[in-house]
């Protein structure tokens, strides 16, 4: 049967892509963040992860206001890199696993999460700003197939934090019920604090970020009582992306704790990476 062997929470941002593509990951400016990602990549090798379920939000790079899904799941064997407005980044399409994707889809629908079904999905920086640091081989090939799960945090009304928590529980059941012997890591990308509009543009809220990192690790269900106003007032309007971490965390055992954590407030964002190794209690 498939097992969940770990979880990752990570920021996503075009700035990370620009730094990576410019070869600036080892500069003084970016090493604090990319060093952490490198460690997470090494740990993924050690834990022999062979599938990633990546929970993220699209930013008008695949979906448009004309029809915007609340929850959507990729069920394809590959996902092209989205052109976000300046040409797609020079990576091959992200590898998928259609069989596993369709299984997860059936399981989520059986659990009353009625997903939008994506046989075609272009993935944007929500997936591929953190992905190269943890999943790219020496020949720039993707190593671990990805199942993308998209949660709307862009077009209001948004699914509640409590609903996102329940979705994570359902993702867990979908993995545990798959007969193939897979080692799965759940990834949630987004946040932490940032504010991209209005007179508060560029404000980073370190207090919120630190509180969030502690709660998501130790008492994540408390975050389900937060309203979107709470997240926005304390972390900025774009901080609502942290619900992607909440889905991830709900798929892990309650007593899981991060074995890696990095927080790097820089320029207009509170960047963070957390990784949870739950491989020792496999099948829990």
């Amino acid at each position, binding site marked *: 049967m498939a097992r969940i062997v770990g979880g990752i929470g990570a920021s996503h941002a075009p700035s990370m892509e620009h730094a990576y593509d410019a070869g600036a990951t080892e500069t003084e400016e970016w090493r604090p963040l990319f060093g952490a990602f490198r460690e997470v990549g090494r740990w993924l090798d050690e834990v022999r992860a062979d599938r990633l379920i990546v929970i993220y939000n699209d930013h008008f*790079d695949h979906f448009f206001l004309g029809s915007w899904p609340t929850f959507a799941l990729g069920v394809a064997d590959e996902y092209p890199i989205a052109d976000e407005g300046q040409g797609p980044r020079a990576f091959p399409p992200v590898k998928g696993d259609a069989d596993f994707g369709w299984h997860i889809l059936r399981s989520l629908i059986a659990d009353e999460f009625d997903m939008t079904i994506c046989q075609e999905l272009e993935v944007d920086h929500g997936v591929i700003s953190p992905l190269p640091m943890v999943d790219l081989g020496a020949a720039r090939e993707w190593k671990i197939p990805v199942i993308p799960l998209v949660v709307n945090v862009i077009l209001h009304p*948004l699914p509640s934090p409590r609903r996102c928590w329940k979705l994570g529980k359902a993702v867990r059941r979908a993995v545990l019920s798959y007969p193939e012997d897979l080692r799965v890591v759940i990834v949630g990308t987004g946040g932490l604090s940032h504010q991209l509009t209005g007179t508060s*543009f560029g404000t980073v809220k370190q207090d919120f970020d630190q509180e969030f990192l502690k709660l998501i690790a130790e008492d994540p269900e408390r975050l389900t009582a937060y309203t979107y106003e709470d997240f926005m*007032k304390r972390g900025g309007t774009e901080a609502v992306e942290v619900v992607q971490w909440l889905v991830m965390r709900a798929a892990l055992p309650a007593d899981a704790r991060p074995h890696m954590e990095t927080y790097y407030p820089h320029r207009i964002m509170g960047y963070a990476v957390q990784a949870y190794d739950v491989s020792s209690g496999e099948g829990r």
Partner: protein
Amino acid sequence: MEQVEHEELTDDYWRRLEATRPKDLPPELDLFDEETSRRGLRLNRAAYSLKDEPQRRLFAEDENRWMAQFGLTDEEEDLIRSRDWIGLWRNGMSIYTMTKLIGVTGTPLVEIGKQMRESGGGD
């Protein structure tokens, strides 16, 4: 919102319904909300189109012909023509579609940020 009286409409129901609409946000947070997305549909459709290379080429070759595809109002066309980022934002263009327009006009995001901070608030 006016609360209709009905025994099946519990306090918990009203609380959940209320939570779908963020409110009481300080003006400096100027959220892209339901109202903005309805108001900004045309402008966002135009900027979204720039994720495709042929649209970017058309934009570079003939901006007016590019704009003519989206049923924009005269005011909206003027906002794009004059690179009035604050005006575009106030008329409902999302920051995420705006980044595509920023890209083809060669405007750095920090410049947008500077204008946002100095704009003196939302609507």
